[in-house]
């Protein structure tokens, strides 16, 4: 898989930077948990004073447990947005970025088919996000004891899987935008758009029963709705994410094989 290897090699330093940034942000947030006093603290009362809509929007209703705290402060917030940023950057670079910079023309004039290029770059992005996920999972497992989070190993794996699949789906939205339109702006817009809309639908869906349909169609809710860090695997949610990512990849392949390369 030469295209996959080349894509990973070219982005190796970038991947390291994202890993360090994510672990640093996670450590910063989780280290506050013991000083906030955990389950025994007045945090529940504090949260009760916040507007109810806001609490539900960012998932702070479970904040007094270790799993709820890690979920709402990291995986559901900065961890999600940082992961989305990396995913959109990579998904954009995979087709539109290299196309606009002229690098794709050269690779595709070699004996590499467009199908092969998109497939291998898709797998490369999945590999990178999985690496980030494994790093995050190991870091979370290491922090669970010192910061009194009391997390279960299998739940850590479940939340990491949800995070990886969610960011991968967003990356594929960006890749698809590039494959269809050949423009960096379109790829960035579609990737970031899917991420932001998924987040907002989840937040609005939590506000009331009438809004519940919004959660039903939000990839963010598919990933986190069943609280994987507290309750473990949610096969249904992960399946929906994988299916949406597959639709994005298939659309990308169909469109990219048919069109002119831009330059």
């Amino acid at each position, binding site marked *: 898989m030469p295209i996959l290897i080349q894509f990973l090699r*070219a982005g190796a330093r970038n991947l390291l930077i994202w890993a360090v940034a994510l672990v640093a942000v996670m450590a910063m947030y989780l280290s506050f948990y013991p000083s906030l006093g955990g389950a025994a603290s007045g945090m529940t009362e504090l949260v009760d004073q916040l507007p109810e809509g806001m609490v539900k929007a960012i998932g702070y209703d479970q904040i007094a447990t270790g799993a709820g705290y890690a979920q709402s402060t990291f995986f559901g917030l900065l961890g999600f947005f940082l992961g989305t940023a990396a995913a959109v950057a990579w998904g954009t670079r995979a087709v539109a970025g290299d196309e606009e910079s002229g690098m794709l023309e050269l690779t*595709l004039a070699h004996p590499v088919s467009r199908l092969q290029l998109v497939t291998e770059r898709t797998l490369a992005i999945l590999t990178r996000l999985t690496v980030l996920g494994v790093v995050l999972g190991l870091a979370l497992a290491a922090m669970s004891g010192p910061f009194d989070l009391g997390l279960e190993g299998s739940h850590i794996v479940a939340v990491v899987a949800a995070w990886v699949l969610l960011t991968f789906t967003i990356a594929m939205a960006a890749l698809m935008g590039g494959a269809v339109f050949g423009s960096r702006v379109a790829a960035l817009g579609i990737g970031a758009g899917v991420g932001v809309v998924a987040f907002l639908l989840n937040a609005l869906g939590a506000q009331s029963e009438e809004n519940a349909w919004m959660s039903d169609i939000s990839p963010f809710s598919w990933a986190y709705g069943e609280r994987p860090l507290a309750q473990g695997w949610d096969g249904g949610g992960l399946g929906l994410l994988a299916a949406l990512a597959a639709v994005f990849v298939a659309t990308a392949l169909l469109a990219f094989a048919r069109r002119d*390369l831009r330059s």
Partner: protein
Amino acid sequence: MTDVVVTTGLTKRYGSVLALDSLDLTIPQGTVFGVIGPNGAGKTTLMRLLVDVLRPTSGSITVLGMEPRAGGKDLRGRIGYLPGEFHVEPGLSGRAHLKFWTSISPGDRTQVHRRAEAMAERLDIPLDRPARKLSKGNKQKLGLVQAFMHRPELLILDEPTSGLDPLVQQTFLELVSEARDGGATVFLSSHVLSEVEQAADLAVVLRSGSIVREASIEGLHTTAVRHLRARLSDADAATVDRRMADVAAGLDVSVEGEDVLVSGLVQGHADDLVKALARFTVADLVLAEPDLEESVLAMYSGKDVP
């Protein structure tokens, strides 16, 4: 002799812009075939169509007996392509690039890699430096290596010598003739006439998406125009004027201080002209190629030379 590239009525439109207008082109096997034309004439579009980076609006293309899209990656494995704008991965070294191109190259990869390294050495490319630190010339040399390294049957080179210093241009010409001697066909483009003159056996002149003229290199040569500027000392203007009128019409002869200046446009072989000038003491002589638009116009309006 078979034809390596055949296009019939090849048309490419970008929205309302007509880049190629019903082009009929045949490139015979084993030739070095040049396409000359000003920027925007359609040279790059034509080359991109041949490697299936672009698809034709209408008309047909056959490359090495196959339609580019149907031929797919196997067909492209038999082609070496140098894009007009050559871009490399900024963070990776030249060596990593060679490794990558080897890994997507058809045939015996050990041999391909060995040949790539030998070529890089011959062209004197610093392989261990990250590509972003390479000069434009060194990047272009890397581009040449990736086009030639797998010994393709057809080389498609878009402005191959841009950014290369004269010494390397010489090496490039050697590479082209070696490839041709090995049985390959070379299709190259330039906006500089002399470049194609040096390398090619046959050439077409492309302008606004159509072939303006098709000729052997000798044919192009005799119709080419040159800018002349000469400074003669120890001469008198009247004699110079008379002598020059015999070889070229319409030259401007003037006196500047002690010297006589001759300037203007000349067409055809330079031999007569240089011999006429040599009767005087030549203090300075510039015989320069005009820009291509001018030569093409001259060719187009000038008398037809076979």
